[in-house]
């Protein structure tokens, strides 16, 4: 075991992948001499050379499109998108090219590409540096979408993603880069928890809280606080958003009868909607209350000094727990102000004098 940060664990995984397989190459902006803006690739170019760890021009579509060609040549590219908000220029290459190539070529062309993307807010960053775009990718068939939240999962899941023959969007929660823990860097991938499995990170009996990424830490804190008040919360780190380990989550919700979904991303069309809808379909007779979503607001990511009002925190998670337990009456829908009916009424024009 080694004490590593989340970022250090990811670096360890990349080092291992580069050392074990000549076909693994890294592509990205500032990943060479600079070691990446989060230092996840620190020292790798010096050790493995500029042909394996490649600084690219500043062109995200170019990075992804180049990775497609490299994969067609037999390589296993690992690309780094510098920040979540910078992935959108590459969206076409990801959605129209990576995601569909295996399907449209009848399985002839596999693209084992891992896309590392720092994700989420809470670090007081400038605009476009705190996005949560996971729903776009989870919605797209042909790619896998995963989010690691601990150093140990970072070390293992990144190696699993690189070993996977499908394209994998690999989200790295920025708030977790400096979280430290003991990490076993030599986990055998054959016996490790598979990449598409969720993990129960806290056991409980009253409420199931389903989350992923940086919110896993927030929800664990909330579970501890709730436990002090006699409420037993089960926290599930989903880890894989596509495919989802429904069986694990379903088993928990059937036991607790209550579901709270927590994520940083906006609510409308967010991944929480998929979780709530599918678990309602699967667990309806077992539910004691309607599922509750605790999410970011339906706004563009706000300025740094306001992000604490956007990101779910311990108290907002506990508020969601209270709602699903019926301790506070208001659900998000019934809490909305009544529509201003007068605005819908036909107004009689003022007589013109």
């Amino acid at each position, binding site marked *: 075991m080694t004490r590593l940060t989340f970022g250090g664990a990811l670096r360890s995984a990349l080092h291992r992948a580069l050392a074990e397989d000549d076909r693994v*190459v890294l592509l990205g902006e500032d990943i060479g001499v600079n070691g990446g803006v989060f230092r996840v690739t620190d020292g790798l170019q010096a050790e493995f050379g500029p*042909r*394996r760890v*490649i600084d*690219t*021009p500043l*062109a995200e*579509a*170019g990075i*992804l*499109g*180049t*990775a*497609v*060609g*490299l*994969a*067609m*040549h*037999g*390589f296993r*590219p690992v690309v780094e998108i510098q920040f979540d908000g910078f992935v959108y*220029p590459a969206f*076409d*290459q990801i959605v*129209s*090219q990576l995601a569909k*190539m*295996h*399907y*449209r*070529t*009848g*399985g*002839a*062309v*596999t693209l*084992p590409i891992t896309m590392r993307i720092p994700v989420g807010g809470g670090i007081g960053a400038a605009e476009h540096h705190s996005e949560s775009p996971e729903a776009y990718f989870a919605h797209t*068939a*042909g790619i*896998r979408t995963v989010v690691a939240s601990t150093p140990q999962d970072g070390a293992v899941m990144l190696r699993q993603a690189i070993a*996977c*023959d*499908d394209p994998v969007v690999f989200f790295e929660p920025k708030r977790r880069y400096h979280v430290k823990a003991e990490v076993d860097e030599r986990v055998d991938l054959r016996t490790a928890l598979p990449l*598409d499995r969720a993990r129960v990170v806290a056991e409980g009996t009253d409420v199931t809280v389903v989350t992923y990424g940086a919110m896993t830490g927030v929800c664990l804190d909330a579970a501890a606080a709730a436990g002090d008040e006699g409420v037993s919360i089960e926290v599930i780190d989903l880890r894989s958003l*596509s*495919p*989802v*380990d*429904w069986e694990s989550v379903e088993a928990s919700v059937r036991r607790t009868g209550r579901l709270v979904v927590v994520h940083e991303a906006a609510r409308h069309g967010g991944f929480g909607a998929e979780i709530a809808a599918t678990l309602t379909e699967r667990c309806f007779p077992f539910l004691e209350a309607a599922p509750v979503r605790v999410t970011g607001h339906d706004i563009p990511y706000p300025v740094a000094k306001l992000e604490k009002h956007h990101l779910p925190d311990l108290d907002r998670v506990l508020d969601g727990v209270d709602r699903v337990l019926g301790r506070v009456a208001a659900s998000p829908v019934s809490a909305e102000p009544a529509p201003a009916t007068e605005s819908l009424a036909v107004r009689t024009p003022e007589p013109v004098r």
Partner: protein
Amino acid sequence: MLDLYREMRILRRIDDEATALQRQGELGLWPPVRGQEAAQLASARALTPGDFVFTSYREHGLALHRGVRGADLVKVWRGVAGTGWNPHEIRLATQQVIIGAHTLHAVGWALGETIERGEQHPDAAVAYLGDGAMSEGDVAEAMVFAASFRLPVIFFCQNNQWAISEPVTLQAPGELADRGLGFGIPSVRVDGNDALAVYAVTREALERAHTGGGPTLIEAVTYRMGPHTTADDPTRYRTAEEVAAWAERDPIDRLAALLRSEGVLDDEAEREVAAAADAAAAELRAGCVALADPEPLAVFDHVYAEPNRTIERERAEYQRYLAGFADANGFVEVDR
């Protein structure tokens, strides 16, 4: 050269046959290549078998030259498969509909080639694109990558004057080839209806790519004599005079004139070529109409390379749903 001429005539013949098949309801769509036979086939002939070709969707000439035959040429356009061939087997990527996206794939393949084999004797990646694609951001990025990494790439732009209804003047006020120079890429403009000229410039670009000289942009000036696709009506946006003027520069007629003056082509050879073209068209037609629709559950095939529980679950659900319909004997399977 007679082989090139024969191939050009075969391409035109199967192109016409495919248009007819679309009109008869056998194909959903077809993008005719008429007028671009020299640009495609003379350049294809310059390549070596190791060079990997990445094309848009009108490059039937490249498919033909790489050995794609009969029904495989039209599977995609009949809507029965996503590709007509295995890209690895003939080093020809599946057709690309997202304009310009494949130029980056060519760049990546070339980068892989230099990582694996070094700069001295790599095979080349050849990206075929059109005048419209020259405006796409992906193409600009591809040229940046190719130039900065000095990659063995040929950007072969067929400037056929039209991107559906938009004239090339909307893509660039000047010559497209000039754009490559800004990226630091040697660039050449060639008469794309002159088969020998196309062959010569492609050979030169290939020589550069194969010897560590980096990328080349070729602008082959040609003309799309037919519609953009069988769904297009070009009379809405271009004049009969323009079409007639380009018909005078038909690349097949020009090569025929040269071959006749050189004594290579005579009436008997012409008859042999026509018979070969007719045979290819008959093979295409017979193969096309014999293509069966895929099985319904094939919609779930190959979404992922590895087992995926989402797909497995949905396949099982849909299979159960389909089983609820009456079979050929009128019985419904009730055991669900």
